[in-house]
């Protein structure tokens, strides 16, 4: 059987290897520092992009509201010309503005949360008051005190409600 030969490396070889290791360590360190710096710069750039995207998105949304602003202007102008309007006409005018506003908001993902008559759901509703009415289902929403809204399936504001509590 052949004996394996182990030759001890000489000082010179060890010095060369040490230099090589040192060079590699310095390379790794430099790479790590560069990657860290790049990552930080990327973070800063992403934050700036987010900021400018937010501003741009706001501008898009505000633009959609301009026709509503026009409607307000023309309503005010009309009222000024006629001097007097009936309550019925005023209500009709306001509800048409409300419809216009809702259309813009719905187009952007807003949805009203259904409450009255539905079963109380703490994921969508917030219970402010309770009452005991026999003959009505337990935990049914009796009254909606403030409307709630969803924005693309996320609760923007829960409906504030009064519920029936039989217990």
């Amino acid at each position, binding site marked *: 059987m052949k004996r394996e030969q182990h030759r001890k490396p000489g000082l010179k070889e060890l010095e060369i290897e040490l230099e090589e290791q040192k060079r590699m360590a310095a390379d790794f360190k430099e790479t790590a520092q560069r990657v860290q710096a790049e990552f930080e710069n990327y*973070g800063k750039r992403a934050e700036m992009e987010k900021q400018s995207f937010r501003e741009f998105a706001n501008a898009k949304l505000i633009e959609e509201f301009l026709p509503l602003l026009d409607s307000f202007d023309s309503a005010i102008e009309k009222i000024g010309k006629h001097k007097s309007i009936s309550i019925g006409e005023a209500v009709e005018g306001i509800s048409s503005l409300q419809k216009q506003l809702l259309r813009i908001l719905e187009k952007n993902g807003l949805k009203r949360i259904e409450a009255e008559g539905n079963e109380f759901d703490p994921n969508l509703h917030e219970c402010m008051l309770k009452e005991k009415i026999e003959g009505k289902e337990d935990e049914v929403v009796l009254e909606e005190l403030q409307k709630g809204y969803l924005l693309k399936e*996320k609760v*923007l504001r829960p409906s504030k409600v009064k*519920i029936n509590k039989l*217990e």
Partner: protein
Amino acid sequence: MAKIIGIDLGTSNSAAAMLESGKPKIIPSAEGSSLYGKSFPSYVAFTKGGQTLVGEPARRQAVSNPKRTFTAFKRKMGTDYKFMVEGREYTPQQLSAFILQKIKKDAEEFLGDKVEKAVITVPAYFDDNQRQATKDAGKIAGLEVIRIINEPTAASLAYGLDKKGKEHRIVVFDLGGGTLDVTVMEFGDGVFEVKSTSGDTQLGGMDMDQAVADFIIKDLIPIY
């Protein structure tokens, strides 16, 4: 490498953060007090139907389900107090664990990775029992609590006060939802030392809300 998250397990509100490129970043709660909210109310509730609610939904049904809704259980940490729900007992640690479980879940969804280790902050005045109870709550929630740190120390670290490189004295005012803590600390040789801590465990932002509500009801409504 899996992230270690930092948790502010508060009396009235809780939140979590992680370090990204050396800077703290708050992990948003899936349903915070607002859309994409950061923190959420420290509420746990058990519904009649057997559901466990944590955070915002639990708070929203507190009026209709007061006997099975719990908050401010942090005040009972480290004591033998038991919360009763129809014959079942819950320790303050178990209720805190529900909050921590929600934080773990939200953090995992946010990071897209498993979260198994956490640092939790506690008031500077918490004794060994209360600190141990906080660690136990983490364990129940499936989190290894690698460090418990004082809340004022965490605040000082967030401001980089440990990096200023010299000794200094710091005062931290922590006006929370349910408590007010004032702590005087000294920093030197990389160590924060609490010199004195005091405050009011029954005074916070919620008491101010209540005072405004009482003023409106008692003084404004009768006039208008």
